[in-house]
């Protein structure tokens, strides 16, 4: 670069020689320098402006590009943030106490139509009517040619039906996935499981909601994704349930009963091992609730938990318990049984005449109504109410079934002395067989109150739940055992299982008031083995009749008791309960073995 001097000496000297003013030359040079400087500055400013403009253009186009991208693209979830939880079912499984599946889900297909997109509505209607016999071709055609844009055709399709619809080749017929609740065991445990139906429905999914039973009770738990698909564990055992249902069905048919129920409960925890109510239904195709007739005759009705029956003489054991707890009687105290006992217009009779006096044990063993009524008169209504309240007969069941929780026992509004006397032998108070099961468990397990439950993880009762003393409980067990060895329930004897129990036969109430002459509800409430009670069994038959003799026999001893014995014979070995052959008469602590 050639540098020009600040003062152009050469030009100034030449100008002096030529006589020109040198200041002019200097001014010219200065002006030239300033011009160059300005040009350079302008150029620099221009380039900065261009750079700035470029930056802005780039920044704005970047923002514009991103905005266009966002506007044009489908919304997707950010792919960097991932859920680590496994993909779980919409609704958790229900399993029994051994983990066998009672309810699970299956993906099926639903079928819907877009009539506007149909190519050949006539062919589609005819084809569908052929695949689904319950659909009528003309009805479908009317729908397909109407103004509607969307119509459900079938909510559940089998794979074969789906293929058949595919083969119609109609673009207006479309499929959606559909989760289906499956009960692989069908009728078994129908009343416990309840059932499900579809809630809000969409094309891509449908909500499965519980409508009854534990499905409704634990709806929130089953649908809670936070459980990560952990199943709901029930206390029931499906193989026991199956055996019990089979025996009960056989017994119901043999006795010509119109309904039957049975409850098998763990005597120490209140866990329900099996609960059957007949007639029953298939929860896979849950029938609609009846619109006419008695709802208690519907298969949907759970006799074991919802039914309210007078449970008859099974209540006498509570009477004996109160008498012993109050200290007014021991098993050997003689009770007046002379009859008939008149109370105002009301007469209390016994099935047979048992003479003037019986010991308390014999009042139970022979099932004397008069003896029980006389005892109740002695301890009074308050003691009786307190005991029955403690046993849960005043409250709705807390078992995990919504139907049962709505059903309150029927207790007399005015608890008169007559009520006290009739309730002492089980008339005048209606409760469910499940109430009775819990009360028998409480009476026999050593006196600790149990609450019936369907959950496997229920803790056993503690000393705080004591209702009667352990001694009274032991005496009651002995009495119940004697009812079987020499009393009304002799047909209940199953060798090796030391069953103890009490029968109860109650006339059915007439809807118009009063009682039927020839219609009864027979109940057997039992516990086994009596030396160390493990299980309580309640069997109840509705209108049974045993016709092997000369005249029809309707007492529990001839109807419910043999059924109960057969249930124990089948079910106890299944539960791994070893038969132990005691000689009851001599020493119950020595097991006789032979070699």
């Amino acid at each position, binding site marked *: 670069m050639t540098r020009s001097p600040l003062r152009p000496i050469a030009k100034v000297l030449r100008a002096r020689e030529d006589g020109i003013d040198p200041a002019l030359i200097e001014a010219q040079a200065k002006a030239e320098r300033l011009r160059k400087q300005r040009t350079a500055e302008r150029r620099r400013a221009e380039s900065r402006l261009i750079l700035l403009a470029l930056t802005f253009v780039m920044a704005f186009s970047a923002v514009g590009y991103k905005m266009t991208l966002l506007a044009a693209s489908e919304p997707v979830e950010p792919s960097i943030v991932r859920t680590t939880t496994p993909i779980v079912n919409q609704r958790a499984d229900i399993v029994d106490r051994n983990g066998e599946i009672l309810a*699970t889900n*299956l993906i099926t297909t639903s079928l819907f139509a877009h009539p506007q997109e149909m190519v050949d509505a006539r062919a589609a209607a005819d084809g569908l009517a052929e695949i689904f016999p319950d659909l009528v071709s003309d009805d479908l055609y009317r729908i397909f040619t109407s103004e509607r844009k969307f119509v459900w055709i079938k909510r559940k399709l089998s794979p074969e039906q789906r293929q058949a619809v595919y083969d119609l080749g109609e673009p207006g017929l479309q499929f959606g996935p559909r989760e289906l609740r*499956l009960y692989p065991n069908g009728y078994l445990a129908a009343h416990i499981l309840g059932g499900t139906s579809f809630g809000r429905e969409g094309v891509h999914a449908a909500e499965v909601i519980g409508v009854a039973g534990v499905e409704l009770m634990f709806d929130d738990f089953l649908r809670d994704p936070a459980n990560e698909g952990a199943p709901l564990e029930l206390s029931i055992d499906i193989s026991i349930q199956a055996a019990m249902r089979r025996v009960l069905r056989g017994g119901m048919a043999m006795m010509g009963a119109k309904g039957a129920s049975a409850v098998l409960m763990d005597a120490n925890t209140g866990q329900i091992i099996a609960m059957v109510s007949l007639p029953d239904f298939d929860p896979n195709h849950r029938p609609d609730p009846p619109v006419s007739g008695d709802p208690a005759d519907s298969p949907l009705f759970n006799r074991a938990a919802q039914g309210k029956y007078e449970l008859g003489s099974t209540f006498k054991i509570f009477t004996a318990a109160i008498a012993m707890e109050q200290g007014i009687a021991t098993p050997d105290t003689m009770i007046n049984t002379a009859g008939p006992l008149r109370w105002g217009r009301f007469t209390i009779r016994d099935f047979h005449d048992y003479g003037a006096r019986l010991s308390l044990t014999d009042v139970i063993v022979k099932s004397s109504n008069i003896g029980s009524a006389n005892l109740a008169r002695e301890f009074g209504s308050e003691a009786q109410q307190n005991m029955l309240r403690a046993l849960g007969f005043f409250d709705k069941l807390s078992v995990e079934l919504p139907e049962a929780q709505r059903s309150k026992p029927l207790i007399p509004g005015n608890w008169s002395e007559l009520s006290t006397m009739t309730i002492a032998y089980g008339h005048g108070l209606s409760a469910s067989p499940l109430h009775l099961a819990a009360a028998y468990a409480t009476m026999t397990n050593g006196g600790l109150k149990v609450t019936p439950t369907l959950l496997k993880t229920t803790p056993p009762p503690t000393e705080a739940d004591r209702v009667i003393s352990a001694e009274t409980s032991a005496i009651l067990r002995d009495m119940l055992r004697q009812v079987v060895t020499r009393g009304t329930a002799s047909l209940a004897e*199953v060798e090796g*299982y030391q069953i103890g129990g009490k029968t109860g036969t109650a006339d059915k109430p007439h809807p118009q008031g009063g009682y039927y002459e020839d219609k009864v509800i027979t109940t057997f409430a039992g516990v086994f083995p009596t030396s160390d009670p493990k299980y309580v069994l309640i069997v109840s038959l509705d209108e049974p009749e045993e016709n092997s003799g000369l005249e029809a026999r309707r007492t529990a001893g001839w109807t419910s008791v043999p059924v109960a014995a057969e249930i124990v014979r089948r079910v106890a*070995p*299944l539960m791994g309960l070893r038969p132990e052959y005691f000689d009851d008469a001599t020493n119950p602590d020595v097991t006789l073995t032979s070699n």
Partner: protein
Amino acid sequence: MRGVLLVFGVALVVFFATWAYRVNYRTQEALARVDTLYDQIAQERQTIAVLRAEWAYLNRPERLLALSEKHFSDLKLMPIHPGHFDEISRIAYPVPVVEDPVGDDPLIDMLIAAAIEEILAGSE
């Protein structure tokens, strides 16, 4: 000196740009793979659920009972009964295996063979 630095800088930029580019694509590939795996897991779970449902359906007590009755002649299965329990002390001990004191002496076999031959010869 400046030129060297410039060349070095450009080389560094190219290197890191390539690296970032490759990491980006590898990440996308890994994410896509994770997606596929999740899909597969979901599908497997679905299959397991179907198989479990099928297993429960095929093993329902009602069907097992019918099957055991149908194949009773082969299986001889019957419902468990209180009589099926017994005391261990009542089960007989297995008969002990008594050792043959002679053992595998080849001489014995020879003697037996000779005796058989003799008998056969005698019976002729």
